[in-house]
């Protein structure tokens, strides 16, 4: 027996309890009250159905109706996703603004994908082809950068009975497949329940670097396509700037940016900047490959909980087309807090710091949806989904539950340090504590494809920085003057690595992005100075003139050398050698 309507019995903030929803399932969507607010069933106890409501619940009370929809919380997938900005439950914010005004009012509802837009469907499959789920039926040029692949939906494998070029909106039939259950009409929309990962054929270990144009990341703590990374740090240490930089400069084909419980203005920033910034590879505006999900801190907390799932499902859908996709979530802590809030209202047994006991498994489940994969479908195409989560620990304390649960699953840790941020050393990624488990993979790739010295240079840079930290301890005890000349030279080289290489100003258009080629050239120039200076020192040169060479000013400014002038780095090295050679004879 099942009913399609129940009654509210309790309201506590975003949590509503209803009775009489017999037959309803976990995670089914419902409509609450006369206002028909969006909600989702998150617990069933006997006849009590707990519902998290995605809109403000003021005005809802016992006795009001709750309507079943019979469907799980799902997103619409199809052409029109790119360039969109959605809230946590995929309501199109641009359309809501146009139709309902500048503030988000309750009950405002519009379809996620534009029904008015006419797309050109170009068939790839032919009549008579046998197709399985994931096979590409045809394509639609969705944006300048994205060729959207219309794939056979789950459970709709069979023989293509009808297909052809079509112009129409996303609801237009583009093909008919004869399935085991009879003919199925296929249009350009799929729906997918967000809490379930989309299937892939096979997962593989990542092999390609995900480059970011950020020197400290690409060179010292690199990320891989299909990998996972986290950026924890106290407020103001630069998490959001790192996420924005990655969204701008990552060499992936698609970017899904999830603003989860953070500032409204940060989303505006992306919206205003991305249409004007050019993808370094294609020269097209970055917006042409971007999808945004924005559930800011002041928007309903239950929708914030959903936002991460909405984002990742959209990201998986593009991965399924065979694209490399990166998803940034800023911040996963706010997502965890949303879970905590709902869990508290459900009066669940709290775990550490009031977080629900399933915090760790939810976080792990999220990062598990990443990967470098062979996609569904018979053509063996490969796609990847990389996940980068910001974490906002209270007081910057890394021992708190969300950071700890995250560190257990991610492979890259970019630890932001407020001391560096105070000294305006950005990105404030601490080079002593951060790590990347993709280093070997990336070294191998870069040694082969870019510069055989990649790994060697990287290791030397790291060693110098580590030695500098030890020497600094010593300096604190005995003073700089007590150091031997070669150690002081080392301190100088390390300082140059920090200031002239690692330090990178996101807001300087010449410094914001650095290609791998330029990165290695810049680092090589600094190491070149160190080698020549050390040799000179060994041959009896005086330390001070070596530390004060005028050419070092040029090294400091070398990060601004234009990408099409990389030849200048060779000249720079020649000048360094000459300057050292020309020091008064020793």
């Amino acid at each position, binding site marked *: 027996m099942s009913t399609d309507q129940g009654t509210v019995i*309790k*309201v*506590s*903030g975003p949590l509503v*309890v209803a009775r009489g929803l017999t037959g309803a399932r976990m995670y089914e969507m419902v409509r609450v009250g006369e206002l028909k607010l969006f909600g989702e069933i998150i617990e069933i106890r006997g006849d009590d159905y707990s519902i998290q409501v995605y809109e*403000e*619940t*003021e*005005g*809802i*009370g*016992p*006795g*009001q109706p709750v309507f079943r929809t019979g469907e799980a919380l799902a997103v619409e997938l199809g052409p029109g996703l790119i360039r969109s*900005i959605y809230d946590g439950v995929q309501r199109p*914010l*641009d359309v*809501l*603004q146009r139709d309902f005004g*500048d*503030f*988000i*009012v*309750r009950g405002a509802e519009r379809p996620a994908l534009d029904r008015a837009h006419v797309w050109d469907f170009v068939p790839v499959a032919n009549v008579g082809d046998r197709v399985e789920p994931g096979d590409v039926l045809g394509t639609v040029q969705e944006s300048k950068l994205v060729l959207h692949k219309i794939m056979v939906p789950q459970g709709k494998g069979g023989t293509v009975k009808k297909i052809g070029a079509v112009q129409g909106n996303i609801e237009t039939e583009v093909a008919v497949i004869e399935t085991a259950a009879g003919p199925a009409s296929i249009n350009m929309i799929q729906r997918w329940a967000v809490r379930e990962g989309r299937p892939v054929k096979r997962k593989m270990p990542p092999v390609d670097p995900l480059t970011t144009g950020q020197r400290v990341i690409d060179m010292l703590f690199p990320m891989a396509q299909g990998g996972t990374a986290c950026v924890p740090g*106290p*407020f*103001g240490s630069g998490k959001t700037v790192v996420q924005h930089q990655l969204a701008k400069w990552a060499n992936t084909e698609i970017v899904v940016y999830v*603003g989860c*419980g953070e*500032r*409204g*203005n940060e*989303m505006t920033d992306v*919206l205003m900047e991305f249409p004007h910034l050019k993808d370094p590879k294609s020269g097209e505006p970055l917006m042409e490959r971007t999808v945004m999900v*924005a559930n*800011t*801190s002041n928007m309903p907390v239950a929708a914030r909980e959903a936002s991460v799932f909405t984002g990742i499902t959209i990201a998986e859908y593009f991965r399924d087309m065979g694209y490399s996709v990166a998803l940034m979530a800023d911040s996963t802590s*706010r997502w965890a*807090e949303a879970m*905590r809030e709902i869990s*508290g209202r459900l009066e669940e047994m709290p775990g550490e*710091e*009031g977080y629900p006991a399933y915090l760790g498994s939810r976080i792990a489940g999220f990062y598990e949806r990443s990967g470098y994969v062979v996609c569904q479908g018979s053509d063996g195409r490969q796609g990847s989904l990389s996940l980068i989560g910001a974490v*906002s620990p*209270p*007081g*910057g*304390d890394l021992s708190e539950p969300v950071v700890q649960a995250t560190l257990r699953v991610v492979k890259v840790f970019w630890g932001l340090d*407020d001391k560096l941020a*105070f*000294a*305006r*050393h950005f990105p404030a990624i601490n080079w002593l504590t951060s790590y990347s488990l993709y280093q070997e993979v990336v070294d191998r790739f870069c040694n082969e494809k870019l510069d055989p010295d990649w790994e060697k240079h990287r290791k030397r840079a790291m060693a110098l920085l580590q030695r500098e930290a030890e020497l600094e301890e010593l300096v*604190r005890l*005995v*003073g*700089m003057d007590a150091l031997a000349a070669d150690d002081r030279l080392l301190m100088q080289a390390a300082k140059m690595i920090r200031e002239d290489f690692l330090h990178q*100003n996101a*807001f300087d258009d010449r410094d914001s992005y650095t290609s791998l080629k330029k990165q290695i050239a810049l680092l090589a120039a600094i190491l070149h100075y160190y080698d020549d200076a050390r040799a000179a020192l060994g041959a009896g040169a005086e330390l001070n003139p070596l530390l004060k060479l005028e050419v070092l000013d040029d090294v*400091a400014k070398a990060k601004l050398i234009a990408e099409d002038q990389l030849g200048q780095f060779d000249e720079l090295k020649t000048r360094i050698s000459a300057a050292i050679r020309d020091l008064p004879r020793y």
Partner: protein
Amino acid sequence: MITKEYRTVKQIIGPLILLEDVEGITYGELTDIKLTNGVARRGRVLEVNGDKALVQVFEGTSGLSPQDIKVKFLGKGLELGVSQDMLGRVFDGFGRPIDGGAPIIPEKWLNVNGNPMNPYARDYPNEFIQTGISTIDALNTLVRGQKLPLFSGSGLPHSRLAAQIARQATVLKTGEKFAVIFAAMGITFEESEFFVADFQRTGAIERAVLFMNLADDPAIERIAVPRLALTAAEFLAYEKAMHVLVILTDLTNYCEALREISAARKEVPGRRGYPGYLYTDLSTIYERAGRIKGKTGSITQIPVLTMPEDDKTHPIPDLTGYITEGQVIISRPIHAQGIYPPVDVLPSLSRLKDKGIGKGKTRDDHANVMNQLYSAYARGKNAKELAVVLGESALSETDILYVKFSDAFEDRFVRQGEHENRTIEESLALGWELLGMLPRSELKRIRDEYIDQYYPKKG
């Protein structure tokens, strides 16, 4: 519809009352609470469960007895009647005039919780506000539509600084309509008088709206105060095209009221007893700052909070910092050195500065100078710490220069008069003068062309 009166209060717990046998009650509803002696109080429904309703009483429950109360549910949430005539008026923490003037005839009634601004509707704050204070204008630039709190401690001159900002803040443009909204939450009479007197002296009172909940006013009312203030602000900004500066002080008292309710409800506490939803709750206040595409007005917020034990990692400043667009830190050690305003520059930050400065807004060299001042000051302070351990002799020649720089920086750049209103050009010129203490080659964060143009010529 006849609204029923209930005499079914069964429990009184802290600031909450629990009613039974109620019907047709909705979440968030406002209630009228009447005592038999005629005294009236107000409440809001925090939870409804079947025929039970949990109500938070804004004036607190002291003196209430279950037998003695009649409760009427008003069928709507807390609303504020708004009108342009609010300018120049003083209200209590519930929006009732307390200045002896006539009642306000509202143009409309607005729910004080407002609605979240659609992120797509936002316009990015990028208009420079000159506060006349060097540490803010040059280093932690405030822009229109920003929320930039003062993190302070008890006994520090945050009120003087907030008043100075309110007094001096101008946008380098003329002919625009301004308003100041001042919301006091649990501050002392003296502190509030200080603001009122300052507003009166400068005439700012004419374009100010004041909401007053003082230390001896009901604590739970503090939960309503910032929402009333911001509702008035939204009305003036977006419907009357005014640029509104909202000063909220002291958010610490607000958070304490929230904690009191959470404790009375026996909720699982987050850190230090504050509710787990403190972040979300604070965001519904702070995120009401901003600008809207296509609208003239704006809301700029300067929330003030006193950090318990001067601890920046305490949940109140911590969660605030995670929401606001930076923070200006008022420091006790710098105050002890006799420097006003005692702004601790290094941990202070304006996140929106980059979009509000530069050519056409302040000056082309601004960003470079700012970065250089920061890093030079940081280096000077480091060197000073080193000197404390090892003695001056352990410092290199350059380090000694940096130490001198940082002393001069505090003494001349940070320090300024309470009525000294420096233009941005003056602040930048002062910055260059101080950078002149360092050799040119140390100015790595500044482009050559600016150094050529602005670096002081020796001799």
